[in-house]
């Protein structure tokens, strides 16, 4: 019984909507026909308003055509058409349905002329019309337009739209647009004060510009309320600006941390200046690229998993290359740190050229999986998913590494070798093995950093170059041989950099940071968190 009832109601609803639209079309045609009799702009304006007042989305076509100067009247029968200039004649279309209605020469038809005032009226009217759209994003856009170009005439359509709106966020926007419209209307001050409160709660830059114009024009209580609201918004905005800078800084810091953390191990524990570190990152990105290529051609369904698959592979590839470098070159150079710098620089040149020869010098396309694209808002902050995941990933890598160093036998051996190599060797630790595996670990971590950085950087053979100097700065600033130092170093450099950028510009900001680091090293040559030791060569 209930089901039948429901079906009956639905049918009834459908019928009424259909019939109402049928009736509306006849009405609309009657109104549109009035264009044939207008004599001046103000009469045209009246007709436009009449059309708008119907609230029917179908009037969008004739109104848009009118605003563009494409609405014509056929002299023979005073019918109104939308015209489109063809090769010789003007093609005519029905103003409501948009169906082709033959063509006419320019002599047979007259254009309905418009001026700028009229065009503005039409634009506002179209904005009002889209309030009734089924698509929430269109409604949001309409509310936004009306907020930015407030008009007292918008109040009643907005009231209607607010009453029928079901989505809370859109409703809030509509109410803000209504408040903006109230402010420019001649409503009593009490209404305006309430409106200012609504707009003050919105708290963004367009609210400030609107309130500033109100402040300039109004007087008395309204003016004071507007001034207070502006001050309130500005302080929140400053807060959000700072928040935005901090977020950008943290995001940059996470990138620096990823790039530097492998270096912190090789440099800090072994004293090896690995100039090929950036190339390990690059190998990681190219591993990701190859994995994605294989997935694209053979297993398209797995694309969202490509990064997860690439992680262990990148670790292995970069780790094995690192192991080969350590066994093949670096172990002969221990005790001569400056020469490891030269040798690994040579390795980095060769690796770059090898990748260039194999993959070509151009940037490679590495796609974002669906869970890494897009963004979401927190208040006035726009946070992109890929940056957020990279932050999470960097902290995870840091945590795992910290666990390995502090809680596993291997980490214990590494720390023992760092603290006192000879003593560690006397205790039976195979220091050559520890060295080789440490270097492989540092390189492998650079590799998985590459997987993450492939999402935000251009994958090219030169990718590593961009990170090497920054990574060294982070490690040296934070203090070598201390993972916490690297963490603090990365995030503080990232945040300082982003706070300097608005004042100094991106490049100058970076220069200032470099100079600050150089000065800092004069003060504390061993970085923020120096390992304590008793060597003369401090």
């Amino acid at each position, binding site marked *: 019984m209930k089901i039948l009832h429901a079906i009956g109601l639905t049918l009834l609803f459908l019928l009424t909507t259909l019939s109402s639209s049928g009736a509306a079309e006849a009405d609309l045609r009657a109104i549109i026909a009035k264009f044939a009799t207008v004599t001046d702009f103000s009469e045209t304006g009246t007709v436009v308003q009449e059309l708008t007042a119907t609230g029917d989305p179908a009037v969008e076509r004739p109104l848009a055509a009118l605003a563009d100067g494409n609405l014509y009247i056929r002299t023979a029968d005073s019918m109104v058409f939308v015209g489109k200039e063809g090769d010789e004649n003007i093609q005519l279309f029905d103003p409501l349905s948009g169906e082709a209605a033959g063509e006419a020469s320019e002599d047979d038809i007259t254009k309905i002329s418009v001026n700028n005032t009229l065009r503005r009226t039409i634009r506002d009217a179209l904005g009002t019309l889209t309030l009734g759209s089924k698509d929430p994003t269109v409604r949001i856009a309409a509310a936004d337009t009306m907020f930015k170009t407030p008009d007292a005439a918008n109040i009643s359509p907005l009231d209607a739209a607010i009453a029928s709106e079901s989505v809370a966020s859109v409703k809030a926007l509509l109410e803000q647009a209504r408040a903006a419209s109230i402010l420019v209307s001649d409503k009593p001050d009490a209404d305006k004060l309430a409106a200012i409160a609504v707009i003050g709660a919105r708290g963004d830059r367009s609210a400030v510009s609107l309130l500033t114009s109100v402040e300039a024009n109004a007087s008395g209580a309204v003016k004071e309320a507007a001034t207070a609201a502006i001050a309130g918004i500005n302080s929140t905005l400053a807060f959000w600006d700072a928040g935005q800078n901090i977020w950008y800084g943290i995001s940059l810091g996470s990138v620096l941390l990823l790039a530097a953390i492998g270096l912190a191990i090789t*440099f*800090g*524990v072994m*004293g090896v*200046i690995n100039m090929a570190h950036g190339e390990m990152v690059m190998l990681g990105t190219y591993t990701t690229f190859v994995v994605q290529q294989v997935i694209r051609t053979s297993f398209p369904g797995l694309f969202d998993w490509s990064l997860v698959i690439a992680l262990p592979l990148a670790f292995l590839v970069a780790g094995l290359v690192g192991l080969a470098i350590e066994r093949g*070159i670096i172990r*002969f*150079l*221990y*005790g*001569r*740190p*400056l*020469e*490891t*710098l*030269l*040798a690994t*620089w*040579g*390795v*980095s*040149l*060769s*690796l*770059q*050229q090898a990748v*260039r*020869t194999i993959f070509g010098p151009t940037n490679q396309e590495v796609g974002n999986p669906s869970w890494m694209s897009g963004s979401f808002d927190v208040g006035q902050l726009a946070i992109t998913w890929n940056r957020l995941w990279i932050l999470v990933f960097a902290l995870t890598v840091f945590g795992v590494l910290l666990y390995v160093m502090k809680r596993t036998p291997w980490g214990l051996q590494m720390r023992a070798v*760092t603290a006192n*190599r000879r003593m560690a060797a006397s205790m039976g630790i195979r*220091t050559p093995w520890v*060295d080789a595996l440490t270097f492989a670990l540092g390189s492998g971590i650079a590799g998985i950093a590459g997987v993450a950085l492939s999402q935000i950087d251009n994958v090219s053979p030169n990718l590593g*170059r961009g990170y090497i*100097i920054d990574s*060294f*700065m982070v490690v*040296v600033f934070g203090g*070598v*041989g201390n993972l916490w130092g690297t963490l603090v170093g990365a995030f503080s450099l990232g945040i300082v950099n982003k706070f300097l950028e608005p004042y100094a510009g991106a*490049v*100058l900001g*970076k*220069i200032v940071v*470099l*100079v600050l*680091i*150089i*000065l800092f*090293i*004069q*003060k504390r*040559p*061993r970085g923020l968190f*120096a*390992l304590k*030791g008793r060597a*003369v*060569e*401090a």
Partner: protein
Amino acid sequence: MIAQRFLSADRRIAATILALLAAAIVVPLLNLAVSPQSAFYIPPYIVALVGKYLCYALLALALDLVWGYCGILSLGHGAFFALGGYAMGMYLMRQIGSRGVYGNPILPDFMVFLNYKELPWFWHGFDHFWFAVLMVLAVPGLLAFVFGWFAFRSRVTGVYLSIITQAMTYALLLAFFRNDMGFGGNNGLTDFKDILGFNVQADATRSALFAASAVTLALAVFVTAAIVRSKYGKLLMAVRDAESRTRFLGWRAENVKLFAFTVSAIMAGIAGALYVPQVGIINPGEFEPSNSIEVVIWTAVGGRGTIVGPIIGALLVNAGKSWFTGVLPEFWLFALGGLFVAVTLLLPKGIVGMWDGWRGKARALRAASLAAEAGADPQAPEPKIVRSAARTPGAWSTAGAEPQPAE
């Protein structure tokens, strides 16, 4: 024995100076006075190319003074070189006068293009050659002095010093890339017309620049040799081999280093100033940290801690680079990378050091056989001749072959 050794080292330096002076006379003559059909004719592009190499050689020699003799691995010498080059470039820009594309008598083209209303203050004076020369010496020298003053007093040594010199180079690279620095942004300074009233492009001017480079290099060899040979040179090597011990003996290690660093930076600046008119352009790319590292390999290939070595290294590596980039461009980086690895692993003393090693062994063997023939000789020379400390770079490392934590 000692006298003989010094004599041979002296002979080598004297030969280098003479060869450079001879080249300064002969090469321009063969270029200008010999007809192009002759087999002895040297085409102008070769003159320009070798002139460029001589500037690189001077740069490598400058690095050798701090790295080979004082143990400071500077990765910032490319920056001193470029600064000297920019000072010369600014002079050359001012000489263009109203012959630029925009025909502005005061402002260089790029300033007109960037809407400068008047000459920035730091461009004043560069229309005089003497001022430009002064700046070529003063700017790199002052930067090195201030940088070294802070770094050496804080006892920033070894790897840390290398890294902060690299940071300095990188910061300068970024700075000179900026358009509003007033140095032409990423296009740099180019389109030079005259130097001292002579056309930069003319064969005679190029030959003269070549001769100037060769003579300057000869002079630098002489000065470096004099420094190294002096008591102060001994102090340099003492700081290199055992800085703390030198300090405990009462010497101010930081002052010793500061002097070497500043002199070396000025030499690098002169090299840059000679380089710019010969290649006709200076742009921020010269500040690339990789350039500075390449200078290190020239020095290492030739043999650091020797005076002739860096010159040979710079000439050989750059000739190789020109040949490779012409014939097998994609293999040049492999070759350069391999060179870095091979030199550090197999030739830690460079070509000159290796040559000395062979000669030393051969001489020791000869002496041993002579001694055996002559019967017992109380004054038998040691089987392996230990050369002066300058000859054995790399051996000052006190630790054995095991990793040293960077701390």
